[in-house]
């Protein structure tokens, strides 16, 4: 049992998924035998599972030689308190004194013992602030353990000792603990109208789904489908799928962001957070889904003004999909989108600690929200194992024919599929020694160079590509790889030259070459060139490249997204110029997407221009009418906006939104009678009225936010916004 194993269990305990911790502990004991660490974690887990008698057995096994022995004895003491076993408690107290516990822990334990047993009274306990702090922290530790043991009443009683200490933070920290354990006055309070009302936001908070994916076309529909209609937007960061994931995600209504995988989960997750515009983030993996019964609960949770985030229940399905077993876990998946809340950890990315660090006292509440995880089902494992099975076959082949370069090449490719770049590189390097035929030789050198780039041996790759190009002069893929390598080295203008060369060369001819990737001499090169030019500050050039990329591969919308962002970031005059160029040649569906993106980016004038251009050409549609209305509304031309909204027919998915906004426009235009009549004509639904009010509030929020940008110190702006949006606005 290595260090990491203990760490993992420790983390499970810290997250209070005691059942999982227990099963891990059992496995660890079976393989590595008993250790004091494991016994301690076992004691804690059993305590958390309400089996304090077993916990005592486990803890008794720990001998005085262990470095955290006093902690173990303290935990033992808590077990005794929980089961009201006062004689044992007295005995353990003596043991604690002998165990070499520090004086704070000792006096805290003695005081709690007396308090819980006799309800004893104390005067002020200590006046020295440093002492008080240490003593207070010892008390808090016991409070937490009593909470773990499911005794909130005893915990509260114990926490009263903190009031006697000269340490002001103590009670606040105890409160935070109660909150973490859901013993919360706010949620469990008297439930009067006042608290209920001030505890919730007035404005509907927006939810962003944040997901990172790579080759997930199998699962994506389930996960995105589970959240459709609940989330206000879906942000999918694609870290380099080679299958149809990105297009599928887009079709399911997600915004797809292409992202270069840097072997860092936290970095990719953070990208998904950065791209999100909502007030809350729900982090989901593609092999997970929101429990279908919890959609309402999810909306309810994010209306709470006090919580900064929620621990949700993870239902890990295990076994065959027809009758799977369920393993329970807990994870922080739902939290407010704030720039200071970011993941850390390249492999096991975490965010909870960072939230607490950024906002001490932030409430991370427990919730009943369920997320179902399918990644451990037999099917999922089988699919994953397929690759391993192929690897085993390839390995066996190589063992049988160690000198066969083609078999070794195949083994390298299998390793690449498993992203084991080092092994792959080794085999491919061996395989390419000797004369290379064009057909699989082209495939092999490409794979080898790709591995080198993945292994960050870029200069070596660049050298080798140059020599390989002498052998395969028309293999565009190699030139493209060279561009990628240069890009990673930050040699941008050279990279641009390589991508331009790709475009000059066009796609590599398939006979004689094999394994040629589509688009490297076309749309992908255009796109890569656009990215490089953007980095170099050549906006016009970048815009042209993006447009060409979209043109070269119709239906590929990623470059159009980049284009929109580019225009949004430009100065107005420059943006106009770019747009004029675009209008000359862009297709209606590209313009429609641009309009959509401009609206999302709050560039309503640009949106209006794009829509105008589409309509000029006699094209249009319900969606465009709706978007045009939206732009006009934002530009405060309510009369014209209203007309556009009224054009949206009941059959359109935007009908309801359009109707609500039409009503808003009538109101905002001082046409109250008409607004009332219109509202009546819409039907009997009470919520419609609230929706109209919400549009008003959203407009108010935009004005307030704009004001806050200019006057960041205005308290009335901050407080009003905070009350409207929930939580405090940083």
């Amino acid at each position, binding site marked *: 049992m290595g260090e990491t194993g203990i760490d993992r269990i420790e983390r499970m305990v810290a997250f209070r998924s005691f059942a999982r911790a227990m099963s891990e502990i059992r496995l660890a004991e079976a393989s590595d035998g008993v250790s004091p660490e494991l016994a301690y974690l076992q004691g804690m887990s059993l305590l958390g599972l309400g089996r304090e008698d077993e916990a005592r057995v486990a803890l008794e096994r720990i001998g005085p030689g262990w470095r955290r022995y006093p902690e173990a004895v303290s935990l033992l003491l808590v077990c005794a308190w929980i089961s009201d076993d006062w004689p044992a408690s007295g005995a353990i107290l003596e043991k604690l004194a002998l165990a070499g516990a520090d004086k704070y822990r000792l006096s805290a334990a003695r005081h709690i013992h007396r308090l819980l047993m006799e309800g004893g009274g104390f005067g002020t306990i200590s006046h020295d602030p440093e002492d008080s702090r240490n003593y207070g922290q010892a008390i808090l530790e016991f409070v937490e353990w009593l909470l773990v043991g499911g005794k909130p009443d005893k915990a509260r009683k114990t926490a009263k000792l903190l009031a006697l200490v000269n340490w002001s933070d103590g009670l606040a920290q105890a409160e935070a603990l109660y909150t973490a354990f859901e013993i919360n006055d706010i949620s469990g309070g008297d439930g009067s*109208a006042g608290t209920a*009302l*001030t505890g919730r936001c*007035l404005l509907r908070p927006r939810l962003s789904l944040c997901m990172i994916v790579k080759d997930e076309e199998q699962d994506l529909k389930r996960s995105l489908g589970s959240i459709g209609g609940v989330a206000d937007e879906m942000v999918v960061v694609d870290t380099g799928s080679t299958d149809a994931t990105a297009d599928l995600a887009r079709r399911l209504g997600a915004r797809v962001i292409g992202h270069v995988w840097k072997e860092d989960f936290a970095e990719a997750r953070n990208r998904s957070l950065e791209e999100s515009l909502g007030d809350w983030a729900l982090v989901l993996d593609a092999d997970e889904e929101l429990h279908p019964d919890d959609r309402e609960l999810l909306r309810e949770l994010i209306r709470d003004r006090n919580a900064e985030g929620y621990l949700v229940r993870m239902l890990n399905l295990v076994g065959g999909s027809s009758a799977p077993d369920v393993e329970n876990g807990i994870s922080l998946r739902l939290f407010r989108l704030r720039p200071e809340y970011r993941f850390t950890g390249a492999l096991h990315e975490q965010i909870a600690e960072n939230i607490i660090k950024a906002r001490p006292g932030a409430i991370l509440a427990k919730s009943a929200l369920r997320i179902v995880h399918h990644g451990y089902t037999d099917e999922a494992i089988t699919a994953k194992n397929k690759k391993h099975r192929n690897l085993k076959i390839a390995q066996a082949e190589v063992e049988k024919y160690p000198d066969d370069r083609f078999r070794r090449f195949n083994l390298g490719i299998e390793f690449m599929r498993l992203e084991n770049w080092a092994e792959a590189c080794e085999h491919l390097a061996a395989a390419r020694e000797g004369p290379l035929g064009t057909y699989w030789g082209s495939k092999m050198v490409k794979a080898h160079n790709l591995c080198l780039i993945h292994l960050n041996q870029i200069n070596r790759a660049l050298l080798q590509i140059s020599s390989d190009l002498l052998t395969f002069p028309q293999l565009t893929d190699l030139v493209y790889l060279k561009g990628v390598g240069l890009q990673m080295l930050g040699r941008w203008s050279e990279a641009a030259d390589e991508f331009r060369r790709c475009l000059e060369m066009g796609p590599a001819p398939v006979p004689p070459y094999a394994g040629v990737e589509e688009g490297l001499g076309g749309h992908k090169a255009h796109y890569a060139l656009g990215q490089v030019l953007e980095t170099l500050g050549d906006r016009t050039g970048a815009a042209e490249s993006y447009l060409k990329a979209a043109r070269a591969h119709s239906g590929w919308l990623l470059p159009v997204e980049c284009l929109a962002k580019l225009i949004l970031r430009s100065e107005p005059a420059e943006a106009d110029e770019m747009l004029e160029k675009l209008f000359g040649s862009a297709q209606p569906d590209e313009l429609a997407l641009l309009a959509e993106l401009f609206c999302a980016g709050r560039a309503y004038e640009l949106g209006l221009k794009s829509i105008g251009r589409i309509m000029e050409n006699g094209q249009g549609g319900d969606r465009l009418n709706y978007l045009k209305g939206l732009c006009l509304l934002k530009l*405060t031309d*309510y009369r014209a906006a209203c007309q556009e909204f009224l054009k949206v027919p009941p059959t359109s998915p935007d009908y309801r939104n359009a109707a609500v906004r039409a*009503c*808003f426009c009538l*109101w*905002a*235009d*001082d046409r*109250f009678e008409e*607004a*009332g009549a219109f*509202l*009546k004509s819409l039907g*009997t639904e*009470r919520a419609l*009225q*609230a929706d*109209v*009010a*919400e549009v*008003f*509030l959203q*407009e*108010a*929020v935009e*004005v*307030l936010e*704009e*004001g806050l940008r*200019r*006057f*960041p*110190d*205005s*308290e*009335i*702006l901050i*407080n*009003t916004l905070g*009350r*409207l949006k929930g939580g405090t606005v940083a």
Partner: protein
Amino acid sequence: MNASPKLSLCMIVRDEEEFLGRCLASVRAVVDEIIVVDTGSADRTAEIARSYGARVFNFTWRDDFAAARNFSLDRATGDWILYLDADEELVLEDAARLRPLLDDPNVNAYLFQTISFTGDTPGPARVSCVHLRLFRNRPEHRYVGAIHERLPIDPHSGLAYRNLRILHYGYLTGVVRSKGKIARNLKILRHLAARDPDDPFTLYNLGTEYLRQGHNRQAARAFARAQKLIDAASGWAPELAKKYAICLMELGDYTGALDQLNKSLEVYPDYADLVFLQGCCRHRQKLYSSALAAFGRCCEMGSPPIFYPSDDGVTTYQAVFCQGLVHQDLKNYNRAVEYYLQALKMKPDYRPPLLCLVQALTVGENDRELLTVISERLECPADARFFLATHLAAARRYTLAQEQIGLIGEKAVPPAELSLLRGICLLGIKRLREAAEILMLISPDSPAYPRALLHLCLCDWLGPAPREASVWLRRLGRVPGWRVESEVYGRFHRLVTGTGRDTGREAAFSPVRAKRHISRILDLTGKLFELDRPDLARLAVSMAGECGERPESLAQVGRMAADFGYFFEAEEFLRKARMGGLRDVAVELELAALRIKSGQLRSAGRSYREILEAHPQSLESYLGWARAFIEGAVKALDAGGNKFRGMWTREVQALRSLPLMAAPDRLLRP
């Protein structure tokens, strides 16, 4: 030479009988001889000097300070020379520390801190800087410069600073004026500048005099030239930087001023006065956050090093007070109050925060609490309390003012003034009869008498027998210097009582005094709105027409009407002001706010948008616009004639209790 070194005091004087005694008394005990060079006194100066044992010499003044000073140095026989001006005084505690300084063989000269009082009386307004005042008597230590003469001593050879302080009374307002110093200095400076137009020091001094007289443009020109020519190592370079920045700021060139300040701060990074000025510029530009940051930085910086001339309090109470002002503009009223209180605590005799606190009382919710805190903070109670009561009454917090009056000892304030204030308060809360009774008791000899008569008129006009006011008007007509008031109130009396019959037969107001007439008419109008008589107020406004109705006055009337809740009148007058050609953000804001009140959300929103297009730094517009939208939300939830009315009461209530909605209307005004 083994004996203790001998110290000579040298000074040049002219007509200094007022100050000289104080100066000589402060140093008599420390110096061994006193050399006084008189450049032509006509008063008892020489006599006073001799009475302190001074040797007095006469010297013919020839517009050259250095020559006169050096003449005095030539007469000194001591090993060391202490130099003072007659309007200065050595700080008593420091005099005792002076003699031992003369024994330090490594020092050739000492710097002293000069603290100049700048207000009307020696008080908190002061500027401090350092000057060379004590040096070895050597032939090479002689002054140069016809004005603002300097000693050419190398700062690197034995110059020391030991915290000795000199108080300087010569910059007090009264003193500057009585001595005609500005005219004298300008004369010398112009002469010097004509002789040597490229001497930066002369240009700097010239700029300083212009700045003192408020000729900012001329000052800026002089400073700009001085800065081009100056040697950055000059001792007066920091002060030039500061004054130039002040000058640019006063001219409204904030970008230029900030540019200047930033550059100077690179050279003098610990000169807090410059940061303070940055704050002032930012505040005037309405860039509140950076203003707060600058003033906050001042507080962190601590007093600037002694060799920078520094205004008192720029790192303490002034910086704190200014943060309060910025928060006030940001509508963070509670925060502003905190800062005012803090400033007041740091400097109890500093009045500006006290005034602001009284104004803050009119918007806050915890008035009484705050007032208690203010009272506790105040030192010299009676005088300050009267000040407080007066301003409370001016802010129309009559009940609070009355409480303060009750706490003032009878003798502390002239009884007539106190009675007047009592009467004003009673009138304010419409206890007319009691008000009249108190006001009637004020004696004709008192300076409060004419003001009492004016208020007595109001008591009668508002009471059952308006005609009775004629008694007071007749008496007012006999008080010299109150003609304008007498005319305005007399005319109004005839309008109210209908005794004027035909206004056409009234003699027109004298056009010479039209401005003063209008201002009195507006005062009267405001008072009448306040006393809930919009009818009489309209009548009063009608008089303004004769003086040539100006849109500014109409706007003011509109604002007053809005103040007292007469929105209909307010809109009418504001619109008239606008039609009269007045283009003013304040008027536009007021009109937009009135539109929210009357439910015209569309035009309110449009007004705010238009204001923001022209003035993006208008906090009030953001607040007002957002308020209009939230009003819209309330309407949508609570609109009449809709089916679900009453089903959203809780939500409506929550919206109404939003900070922006619950705040007083004043929030939407600049």
